[in-house]
């Protein structure tokens, strides 16, 4: 569905994306993982045509970008990291504006607004100005807005950043239910648990380069299924094992408090880059 080949983005002499190659298939939730400044948002901005690129090629549904920009725009729904709702309009008017900009016929548009406000549980707040909304409500409204024109691909840039855990869980449920309805989702996150809870495949970006791509379980397996953690005079140590019995055997050889746990994508990231995702 989305094919990215040798993508380069430079700001002057600074390379923000360095020969990125990526394919995202129809119907999957794909996660772009990496620390702040890794290039995740830039990649999304390029695909959504908010930013240009310096080299390489991007095709969406076999349509080249930016040559087929207008056709591609109809396929994409975008929820940026920053809250960019029109604060001078109500929730209903924000959706109405989006519907008009995407040329949805009036009757269908009005039905779709009602349907989506119901879906994101904001129907009773439809007539209120969005600057009275909480962060979670704004984020849900932004998702509703991005879905107005029935896009084929939904881009979510750090969808739960700054939200409390309960609201985050509600958004996860919303994203999963959209995916079950057939929507392809590309999301960026630096929350490991978010990527593990939602994504069927992830790509890890570090300093503009694609470090690795794969299913979370496969990536964890590359490092080892189990992580043994302990502390010594130099700080926290971690070692990975494919078999739990090996981890236990090694644990018994240590004369200190230890923890055995399942490895996660954070471990994968640290092993591959030597950095933490939230660095």
């Amino acid at each position: 569905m989305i094919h990215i080949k040798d993508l380069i983005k430079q700001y002057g002499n600074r390379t923000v994306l360095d020969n990125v190659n990526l394919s995202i298939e129809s119907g999957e939730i794909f996660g772009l993982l990496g620390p702040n400044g890794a290039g995740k948002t830039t990649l999304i901005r390029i695909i959504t045509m908010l930013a240009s690129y310096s080299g390489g090629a991007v095709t969406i549904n076999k349509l080249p970008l930016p040559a087929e920009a207008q056709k591609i725009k109809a396929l994409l729904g975008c929820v940026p990291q920053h809250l960019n709702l029109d604060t001078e309009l109500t929730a209903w008017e924000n959706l109405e504006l989006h519907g008009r900009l995407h040329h949805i016929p009036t009757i269908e548009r009005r039905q779709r607004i009602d349907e989506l406000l119901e879906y994101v549980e904001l129907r009773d707040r439809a007539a209120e100005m969005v600057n009275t909304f909480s962060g979670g409500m704004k984020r849900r409204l932004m998702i509703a807005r991005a879905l107005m024109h029935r896009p084929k691909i939904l881009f979510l840039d750090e969808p739960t950043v700054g939200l409390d855990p309960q609201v985050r869980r509600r958004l996860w449920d919303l994203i999963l239910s959209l995916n079950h309805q057939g929507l392809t989702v590309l999301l960026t996150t630096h929350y490991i648990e978010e990527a593990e809870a939602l994504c069927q495949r992830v790509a890890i970006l570090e300093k503009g380069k694609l470090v690795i791509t794969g299913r979370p379980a496969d990536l964890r397996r590359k490092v080892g299924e189990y992580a043994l953690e302990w502390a010594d005079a130099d700080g926290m140590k971690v070692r990975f094992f494919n078999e739990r019995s090996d981890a236990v055997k090694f644990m018994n050889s240590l004369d200190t408090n230890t923890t055995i746990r399942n490895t996660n994508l954070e471990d994968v990231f640290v092993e591959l880059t030597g950095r933490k995702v939230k660095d």
Partner: protein
Amino acid sequence: MLEDIRTVIWRDWLVLNRRLGRFILSRMVSPILYLVAFGWGLGSQIQIGGGSYLDFIVPGILALNSMIISFNAVGTPLNMSRLYHKTLEEYQIAPISASSFVIGKIISGIMRGIISSLVIIILAFAFGATLTINGWFWLVLLLNCALFAALGFVAAMLMNSHEEMANFNTYILTPMSFLCATFFSTDRLPLILHYLVEILPLTHASQALRVASQNGYPPWISLGILSGYLVVFLGLGVWQMRHIRN
């Protein structure tokens, strides 16, 4: 394209309509002060070309006011939308053309400029001005609003902070407000300054409005210059909108 232009206007009208009363009231303050100070106060002792200073100054105030209102109606919110609220992205990712967006914004700017001008015209008559408001008068006013709304668009896309926008006002609009035949004839300016202000659009708007308000035909050169500026700013705006991707 027409549907997209209508959408852009629809949004801006919705916002304006919500505070139309406040907008009209706030637009009355400066004109009343100008009319009292220059029309009644200073104007009662001055005659220009055998007519009252009030009749001379009202077209100038209209040109000046429509310039500021139309410029700021587009410039300030668009600059904020681009840099701070990021709401411009909603239009960038929508399948609408750059020209639809620019034209829509300019028409919104014209709308505010014309409403504000209507307020001044009513006030001017209340203050005793004797003007003719004919088709030519409206045409010049419309061109003035349009070209400064377009300039507001260009400035909003060019300036990278709120402060830079304020500076644009200070260095470009404020000097024009005082020098471009608004309060006095440009004949009284030193020769070099006279020629300089003659190439500025506000001078032609003031002069053409003044002629039209006295039942004359505005000079074609003035209409041409105002139209020329409009075309250039419109073209620049469309180009900027097309190349906004960074």
